[in-house]
């Protein structure tokens, strides 16, 4: 089952501006947000609901000055 991108974007938009949200070559899934005003756990709750079934490995996460970048991989 593929990531429900539309639902994911709707969930993310409640907490900031979605700069990028999509997969790349079905290898990994990227979320880039600006103006993120919640903590990281809020993001992880959303990601756990929409992303990790298809991309279970969180390989990168940063939240700096409201810019959130996360990468989930299918596998190494």
């Amino acid at each position, binding site marked *: 089952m593929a990531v429900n991108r539309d639902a994911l974007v709707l969930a993310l938009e409640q907490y900031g501006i979605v700069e990028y949200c*999509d997969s790349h070559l079905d290898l990994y899934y990227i979320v880039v947000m600006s103006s993120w005003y919640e903590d990281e756990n809020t993001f992880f709750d959303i990601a756990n609901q929409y992303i990790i079934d298809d991309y279970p490995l969180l390989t990168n996460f940063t939240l700096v000055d409201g810019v959130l970048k996360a990468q989930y991989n299918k596998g190494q």
Partner: protein
Amino acid sequence: MIINPYIFDGNCVPITGGSSLIVNGFTNINQYPAYGLYDYSWVSLIYSQGLISVPRQIRGIEIEVSGYSTPYTYLNQTIKMAHIPSSTNVFPLNPQVDWSDLNPTNITICKVFNWTINANGLIEILFDQNFCYNGVDNLVLGWENRDGSWAIGYGSAESLANSNKGAYKNQDNSYPTGTGFRLSYSMKLRLLY
């Protein structure tokens, strides 16, 4: 009398036209050698003396990348090499971006370039300034990504699990300073000499 050809007359050993695959690997590491998700990234890798064994005039490297949407361009890339003591086999817990914790010698800026990946697979990068490896110390390779912007479509470099042989730091807006993070992978690397 045995003459170490590396120090004889202070010159490098000659270029031979040869090459050696010193690390092979099949794990995709996005952080290596540059991480396109960030404006700037820093990567350093330690390759032990035993992988090279003898003095070499290193004239380039070959790495293997995958997963890039091609063409993909990184601007303002710098590849550096240096000797570090053979006793320094791994990065410390909080590795310094400026290598000040590695006691490096003969730091050489081997290449400054804009890097366009036109196809995934093996990529050969020839240096503008060769590195004279002395056959005694460990080798540290640095890759500085000063592109200044991030872009989707980035991929990864084939790598091998190897405890604390790598280090990285990624950052937006400015080039990273201070301390980075260890990464237990060695980037697949062929030395051209």
